[in-house]
């Protein structure tokens, strides 16, 4: 995944209400803004605004259902973001092992 896409995912998830929307969608399955607002402490209008921000980051997709849109999670960007963090961890594993070896070598020289 391109780094800028991961950035869009993290930016979209920077808002705590948007994280609640994602969580609610993952628990309830595909839902309308009205259905989500019923279980969240925000208005339907606010939920709709957050859903379009999440859609811009590729985190949710929507389809028509009568007069409302039905939203569902698009898991791939989230999986990629988790993977990005896992790679970050792997790099620190390498760095810390190298740090330990370098300290040992430096001490040996003294």
């Amino acid at each position, binding site marked *: 995944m*391109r*780094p*800028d896409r*991961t*950035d*869009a995912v*993290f*930016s979209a*998830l*920077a*808002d*705590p209400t948007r*994280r*609640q929307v*994602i*969580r609610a969608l*993952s628990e309830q399955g595909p839902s309308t803004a009205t259905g989500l607002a019923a279980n969240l402490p925000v208005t339907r209008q606010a939920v709709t605004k957050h859903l379009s921000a999440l859609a811009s980051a590729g985190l949710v997709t929507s389809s028509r259902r009568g007069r409302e849109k039905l939203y569902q*999670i698009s*898991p*791939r960007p*989230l*999986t990629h*973001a*988790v*993977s*990005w*963090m*896992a790679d*970050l*961890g*792997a*790099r*620190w*594993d*390498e*760095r*810390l*092992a*190298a*740090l*330990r*070896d*370098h*300290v*040992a070598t*430096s*001490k040996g020289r003294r």
Partner: protein
Amino acid sequence: MATVEREITIPATPAEVWPVLTQSDEVSVWFGADVELDVRPGGRGVFRWSDGTERHAVVEAVEPEHRLSFRWLPFQHTAGRDVEAIPSTRVEITLDEVAEGTRVRVVEQAAFAVRATAGAAPAPRWPVVRSAVDRRAAVRRSAPELAAIDA
């Protein structure tokens, strides 16, 4: 997914580890990049990798022999001198003296997680990814349908 935590214990004192963690020529040996780091609050860091990638950081907190934190700026230069946006993360490295030497602990967090911790509003919990093995479990906890895609 928003936090990476790693630690290692090194058979040396914090006084011996600190210079290796903070002096540019020493950091360049183990970091995996050529590093210029100005270790004082507000000081700049420039990290250049052998593939031509360059990232910049700003030092936030410095407590000699105990704590160093810096924030990655949210972009990187590639070998072609393009600029790409990257997630803004904050790195905190702490040293603690233990019986076996010094425990070095690294926490790298996405910037929003730092804000969530600092703010009053309780944020939904995000799983902490400590290892590659954790990744699947983290995905599974995030949303069941993610695990199906990941499998």
